């Protein structure tokens, strides 16, 4: 057999996959390893999906997605953040943010272009840059700084080949919310060096202690905004996301999308229309619940001796496990075998994640409290 694609063949499988394989074979695992809401999609949205099926909305939609859905997304961004995009040619519906990220990187990058990726970050960022022919350039962030992105560190990583900076805020895995000042500093750098900003804001509604800053409002003309319905509306399995970008970028994204995905699922798009048309009570209720669990869980982690930065968004805590003397992979594996608690080792999100574990608090409160008891027992057994 002739060799397969060298970039993809050289890309290691996600470290998360390994932990999934171990945890999947065990019984009674309390999982803090889940990167999705524990709520089921609110009933009114599910009902809209059922209605769509009953009435035969089983066809393709236009490549860019249902016009009504694009209008709602653009209205929502303008209303909440003052970020203005034209629903006709600056917005397209994707099959989740994952597809959106892939599209945008393919559209922006030429072979050899560099993308600055502050880490620890979502596991797909670096591989997707590579798949698109680019080179990811890691920039570390530190938990001592609440994982804020330092403009001077980013500036030092800029070369003539740098094309874009890829940011996720609020962040998976750290729960960090980038302060407005940090984002403004990045915008200045982007303007100075003529860079694109790719902003993954899938967790934008899930912030707890402050206001989310939308990069599309700060630097509309050089920002590609990625968002979706998975987290705030508990719709992970529906696979609906969107890209909002300046017209030339959005147009090329539609071009790739029309030849690869064609369109996002029609039923899912109609469910998403309902998600944005209806009252906000469901989202507010879920956010309030996450916030309460966050407070209990983070306090619990600190009480059992794990130093934990305050996660301002998403639904992850990213405590330091350095006091255990173990590296993050050993810690997670031994915790899983000894106490049947699944967490994700921090190093799978980048070198700066070493010494941490990612714990999702998208889990019922009694489970979180039991997990804390078990982690405490594990720490005492070391």
């Amino acid at each position, binding site marked *: 057999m002739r060799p397969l694609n060298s970039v993809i063949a050289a890309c290691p499988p996600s470290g998360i996959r390994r932990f*999934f394989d171990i945890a999947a074979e065990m019984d009674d*695992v309390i*999982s803090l390893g889940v990167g*999705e809401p*524990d709520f089921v999609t609110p009933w009114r949205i599910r009902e809209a999906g059922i209605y769509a099926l009953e009435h035969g909305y089983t066809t393709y939609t236009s490549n860019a997605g249902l016009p009504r859905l694009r209008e709602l997304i653009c209205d929502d961004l303008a209303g909440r953040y003052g970020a203005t995009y034209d629903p006709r040619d600056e917005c397209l519906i994707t099959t989740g943010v994952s597809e959106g990220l892939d599209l945008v990187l393919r559209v922006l990058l030429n072979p050899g272009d560099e993308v600055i990726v502050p880490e620890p970050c979502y596991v*797909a960022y670096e591989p997707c840059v590579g798949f698109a022919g680019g080179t990811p350039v890691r920039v570390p962030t530190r938990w001592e700084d609440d994982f804020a992105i330092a403009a001077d560190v980013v500036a030092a990583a800029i070369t003539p080949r740098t094309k874009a900076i890829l940011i996720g805020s609020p962040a998976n895995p750290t729960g960090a919310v980038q302060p407005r000042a940090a984002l403004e500093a990045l915008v200045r750098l982007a303007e100075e060096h003529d860079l694109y900003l790719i902003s993954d804001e899938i967790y934008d509604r899930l912030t707890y202690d402050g206001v989310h800053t939308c990069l599309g409002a700060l630097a509309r003309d050089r920002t590609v905004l990625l968002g979706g319905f998975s987290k705030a509306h508990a719709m992970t399995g529906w696979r609906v996301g969107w890209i909002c970008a300046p017209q030339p970028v959005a147009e090329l994204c539609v071009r790739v999308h029309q030849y690869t995905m064609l369109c996002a699922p029609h039923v899912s798009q109609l469910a998403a229309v309902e998600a944005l048309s209806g009252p906000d009570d469901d989202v507010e209720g879920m956010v309030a619940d996450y916030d309460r669990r966050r407070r*209990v869980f983070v306090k619990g982690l600190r009480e059992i001796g794990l130093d934990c930065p305050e996660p301002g968004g998403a639904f992850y805590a990213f405590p330091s496990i350095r006091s255990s003397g173990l590296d993050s992979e050993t810690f997670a594996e031994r915790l899983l075998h000894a106490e049947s608690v*699944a967490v994700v080792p921090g190093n799978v999100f980048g070198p700066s994640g070493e010494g941490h574990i990612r714990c999702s608090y998208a889990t019922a*409160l009694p489970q979180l409290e039991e997990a804390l008891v078990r982690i405490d027992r594990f720490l005492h057994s070391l």
Partner: protein
Amino acid sequence: MRQILELLERDAQLSHDTLATMTGIPVEEVSAAVAAWEASGAIRRYKAVVDWDAVDGDSTAETVTAFIDVSLAPARGVGFDDVAERIARFPEVRSVYLVSGSQDLRCTVDGRSIRAVSDFVSQKLSTIDRVRSTATHFVLKTYKRDGDSFAAPEADHRLPVTP
């Protein structure tokens, strides 16, 4: 403070410590507020929501529930209040509402059997002065009560570890 009551309404077993952590309100203030609500009657009592159909093998746990619509003759000065309060005192009566429409009161009544509920209606409720008529609807199955769905909980279909 209101959110403390909302949390307790959902789960009365939450400790004051946990409530304080969840809301960011100091634990002393949580305890004082709960004590004050208990004293004033704003918190009437704490109870469990039981799905009796799910209690296997306990035939004594079975009850019959009926909604009974009552038509009343109002009285000068008190309207329906005196009769409604009198009906509400019966231990068989779980709730009493004054409602709009063709009837005046809607009551929920529990009994050990259909016969017991029928006897209550015919001998106690219908014989009260100014009760003009009653209409009894027996509950055949409970799907949701007071905001709690009695359907089986939705399974967690998530994989144990995801990105």
